[in-house]
């Protein structure tokens, strides 16, 4: 069986393959990625004209001021959307806390659209707690409020909304989405809110 010989091989092969696959491989990928796709490899960070970092195109943010489109509820961190602590709620389908949270959200949201059923993604937490998107249905639900708060016509808001709505990738993969952070930044650029 040559146990000692195989033990020495085990030690040597662990070291050699760790260098190959644990160091050289990821460093080579990093080198190439940083040269070919520098923006993508660094998280598609969004900066204002003065250089302030305001977020990432891939990571959602919380919005509560009525002039903004709201993101989905989030279970990541105290204020939600903590991209240093991604997390889902992990509430099961018969968890009372889930029902109470959803009912409270529905009540709050239906004030703006009385009697209209609320699109499900707007009252449920995402898997990552960082979902950058809402569904087009959830965006449309919020159009009247945003238009009113910003003193814009609903059609003007819808035009801006349409620019930040994406269909399925290649027309069939995934689901249609609205990018909330980019939409709200665009609204601010076109029609700043009075604070």
């Amino acid at each position, binding site marked *: 069986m040559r146990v000692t010989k195989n*033990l020495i091989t085990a030690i040597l092969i662990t070291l050699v393959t760790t260098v190959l696959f644990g160091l050289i491989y990821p460093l080579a990928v990093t080198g190439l990625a940083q040269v070919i796709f520098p923006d993508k490899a660094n998280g598609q960070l969004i900066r204002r004209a003065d250089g302030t970092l305001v977020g990432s195109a891939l990571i959602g943010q919380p919005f509560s001021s009525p002039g903004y489109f709201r993101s989905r509820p989030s279970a990541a961190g105290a204020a939600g959307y903590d991209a240093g602590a*991604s997390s*889902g709620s992990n509430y099961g389908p*018969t968890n009372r806390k889930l029902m109470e949270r959803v009912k409270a959200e529905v009540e709050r949201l239906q004030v703006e659209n009385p009697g209209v059923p609320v699109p499900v993604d707007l009252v449920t937490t995402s898997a*990552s707690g960082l979902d950058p998107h809402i569904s087009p*249905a959830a965006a449309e639900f919020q159009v009247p409020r945003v238009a009113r708060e910003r003193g814009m016509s609903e059609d003007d808001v819808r035009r801006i909304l349409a620019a930040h709505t994406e269909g399925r990738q290649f027309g069939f993969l995934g*689901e249609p989405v609205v990018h909330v952070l980019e939409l709200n930044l665009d609204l601010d650029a076109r029609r700043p809110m009075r604070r």
Partner: protein
Amino acid sequence: MTLNGWLQILLFLAAVLAATKPLGLFMTRVFNGERTFLHPALRPVERLVYRLTGVDEEREMRWTEYAASMLLFSLVSMLLLYVIQRLQGVLPLNPQGLPGVDAAGSAAGGFVGSAFNTAASFTTNTNWQSYVPETTMSYLTQMAGLAYHNFASAAVGIALAVAFIRGVARSESGTIGNFWVDFVRANLYVLLPLCFVFALVLVSQGVVQNFRPYDKAQLVDPQTVEVEKETRVVAEQTIAQGPVASQEAVKMLGTNGGGFFNTNSAHPFENPTPLTNFLEMLAIFAISAGLTYTLGRMTGSQRHGWAVLAAMVVLFLAGVATAYWAEARGNPILAGAGVDQSASAVQSGGNMEGKEVRFGVANSALFTTATTDASCGAVNSMHDSFTPLGGLVPLVNIMLGEVIFGGVGSGLYGMLVMVILSVFIAGLMVGRTPEYLGKKIEAYDVKMAMLYVLIFPLVILLFAAVSSVSPSFGTSQLNNTGPHGLSEILYAFTSGTGNNGSAFAGISANTYWYNTGIGVAMLFGRFMMIIPMLAVAGNLARKKVVPPSLGTFPVTSPLFTTLLVSVIVIVGALTFFPVLSLGPIVEHLLMNAGQTF
């Protein structure tokens, strides 16, 4: 359910089937030691590795030496991972200055057995994660420790499957190959090239790959929140970074599933677009599907390879149909609360708690089915928040032994154990000594196969039973009560023993009991099952080939596929139905009655 949803599911299956033959042929050449188009570039590296480690590539091993080498390698590499974790505080590539795992001041707050659990987890290809990566693991630990084991444990799995195939294919032979050679070749020719290309494709879609310290962004709309009765303004967003793409690629291709971030493939930096999602799911099945072709090639019965693949496809479709139906149906309790869960052109609808908008219910149900058919365990949605029947699918998939495509290598050898049981049962029915591809299946082979089958539920049920009657260390860690709480415990030990790694993640498992218990369950579920499996392989290799006669049960027919599917379902169902009826099944009935806990 929508037409588009089904279209995406069937397109995925078509892509898997299209990849089966080319990958299977390529792997056949690699493990037969023939030249491939990659040899000009990689053969010198392979030679160098053998020279540095003193491996004689011509040397063949008996099954006992093959098993011993595999165990020695797993032991040594597991120890190294443990040491890296404990020492990461003084090692480089740690821009967040994270302390050693299990050190005082670590995210877990002190010694809770987390480093042991993680070392066992990644060595066994499980990738169960009781830790929160963002706040626990340095970039070095992720790369050289965790992602390294994503390569190593996957290559071990592939090597073992190839050894088993040789056992079936060879006759009157004492040996089943050389573990070190199979291990190096699986890494170098199969995993590395695929991962390299896949990683770059992932970056092109937005998966990050850098060594930046975490970024701090100024929120566009600062939030006022109440934390522990104190009002606080949150104006900053921390954005975790890291060398993600390189790890993501091997995490999926090697059916490892250990996320770079806490929320795994739901995190936009791990899985930003529907395309990355599609490719990640394809990567879960690709190698395992290919190995069925390799099985056919190497045993000289290509139709047997396809018959095994057909059984996998049938079970996959049954799972995904159930999960998709259950998730698209939504939660009846929410429907009564003024929530619109209907599918339309402007929303996916269904049960969206714990799911991402870009994936919707179809891609979440599909990913969940695939990741648990295989022993991957990556998630793009939170299984804990699935409807009871939607969550039953991943649980049952793992309980069936992860033989539906299965983990790289482990899926195939698990399936072949089921094949042996199937021909045994067929033999009993007609009253003849069963044969498998010309080999007589005798008492020793069936005993070993049964050992393989029995260890699995024994470990799961024992640990789950102890946890569910222990309020102080078992049920105290649950996030949900009622039947769902039992499901959380059951899922944890099923996932650990099955080396899957996905979770009903509400359970707070970073405690001494769960870290140790699940750690031991993972080691048992891997190594205690591999040894009887290799014993069968070694025994089959020694046997003479008898020519097929009229009474031989052919392992290439649809009848065989049907029998194989039935054996898998019956073995799994008989073992686990009682506990499932107390968890997801009763929860389903209570949910429909409007009951909450």
